[in-house]
């Protein structure tokens, strides 16, 4: 019995595949926990949704679609264009500077609920000043690489 337990617990790890040893354990653990979460939490939750007591996250909630997907699209476009413009002026950080000005202004406009001239002007000033300041301090004073 004793030796049976010892041999059960003994383990040898082949160096060639040692990079897969721990991930395999984690996969089993994740799978097991997922099954438990599914049975104990998710299924009761779906049952509650069906009874109309709860709502589905994201899908069943009211959301500001324009601002949410707008933010996602703006951020993705910002990241993409930054690299593109940055490649036109390598090692200057202009890609960051120019694209940031446009991005900050557009995002400000999108998040405003009522657009008055005063607010738009504030946003425009902010959009020019903030990226310029960040660019100046980081790229010029501190010599930090920017796109």
């Amino acid at each position, binding site marked *: 019995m004793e030796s049976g337990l010892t041999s059960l617990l003994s383990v040898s790890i082949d160096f060639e595949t040692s990079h897969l040893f721990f991930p395999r354990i984690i996969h089993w653990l994740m799978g097991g926990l997922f099954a438990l*979460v599914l049975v104990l939490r998710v299924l009761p939750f779906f049952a509650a949704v069906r009874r109309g007591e709860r709502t589905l996250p994201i899908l069943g909630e009211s959301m500001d679609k324009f601002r949410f997907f707008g933010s996602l699209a703006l951020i993705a476009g910002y990241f993409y264009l930054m690299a593109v413009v940055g490649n036109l002026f390598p090692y200057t950080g202009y890609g960051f500077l120019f694209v940031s000005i446009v991005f900050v202004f557009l995002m400000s406009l999108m998040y405003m609920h009522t657009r008055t001239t005063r607010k738009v002007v504030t946003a425009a000033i902010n959009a020019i000043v*903030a990226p310029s300041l960040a660019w100046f301090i980081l790229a010029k004073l501190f010599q*930090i690489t920017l796109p």
Partner: protein
Amino acid sequence: MLDILSLLDISFFLLAALGALIGIIFGAIPGMTATMAVAVCLPLTYALGLHHGLALLLGLYVGGISGGMVPAVLLNIPGTPSSITTTFDGYPMAQRGEGERALRVSVVASVVGGLVSAAILFLFAPLLAEFSIKFSYVEKFLIILLALTVIASMSRNMLVGIFSGVIGIWLSLIGTYSISDGGNGKTRLMFDFLEPYLFEGFSLLPVLIGIFGIATILLEAEDGVKSGLSGKEIKIGKGGGFSFGIFKGRLTNLVRSSFIGTFVGMLPGVGGSAASVLAYTQEKNLSRDSSEMGKGAPQGLIASESANNALTGGALIPLLSLGIPGDSTTAVLIGAFTLQGIQVGPLFIPENADTWYVMMTALVFANVVMFFLMFYAIKHIAKVVLVPQYILYPIIVMMCVVGAYAINYGIMFDVWTLLIFGVLGYLIQKVGLEVAPLIIGFILGGQAEVYFVKSLESFGTYSIFFTKSPIAVVLWLLIAASVAFSVAMGLKSHVKRRLETSQ
């Protein structure tokens, strides 16, 4: 000792003060947290040396936690999660026109909490580090396991907490099993075409900045970026009404809450709200007259704010002695250390004595600056709660980009990591998984693997985790205790809910 004095120049103190000021502003803006302040300001430290960078970051940390009291008192919105209990008594006071008095009581309580916890950190961290130096891989692995169980048991639901932690570990394993850690340098958990980008896995800081910065913006955007605050009237009240006499007879409360805050801060991954809630309920249970609490009693503010500021020192204890972050802000600090080429762990304090004293100086100084800034300039600082979101959020996204891009000297993939983890962080919070265990799992996962595999490679049996040393047994007992505690709490709330529904 003279060496250390030479490290402390004027710019060191200016940076700590600047950090405290920016931190207070971040903390004061609802939705912005101390973690975000530290994450967003990280790029500023790239160009600074280690000590100056630490001064700035610790200032941000202390300021960020304290700033949360401002909207809590004035608007009934906790600026950071840990000021939730400050709203209970602060807001009623503000409505009576005692806003400034409430804020000043909170400021005094905060600085006491901060300094008490700094003192405990100073005394306790080196001891813990010295003790843990003798730990072998087996004990180190068990410490990580303990950290993860504690975090999970503090989550709303333990099972979900553990699951989130394991997902975090899984994410950290993407990339190579690094040769420098004794691995074989092969990649796993990804497709071949991703190898150029993910050879070393996801970088820690872009992941953290994404989860804490971009995800917050997405959550706010989904809500439509409410501009509701600007219409709200702020009642700060007339000056005066504050005297240190308020603290007469409140010393026990002050000290007890500071200790509670420090202790809760030490537990890895437990957020600030647990500390202030615990201190608040303790004051309610133990004080002679708690009938006024919740209606605007200074004693509630004292309990809440001293506990939440005491978190700062507490959370640094496991970070500096074991390399395990005490909360999400210190998790970002780990990134800052790594950036400067410093490995935090048991050897950190003995090997970097200068840095250790410099950190303590910065921490104490940041608390003092925070006190003077908030005590005398609170009226002006209070106005930042009205800065509109449409100005702030774009700037935050911009700063996140700088932080992520510059971290590895200009890698665009790190910027995309921001978006990936921003969206992931958003989804995680939406489906009800827990962010804190996930982050801690992500940070500690790599080390957990190395310690686990090394232990098995050297001893060749799983039983070593139980039989290695008495410390291993104690650690298992602690793990069992934290699981039992969580199960007991879960059952208790379950029974309570049953009783409530049956009534």
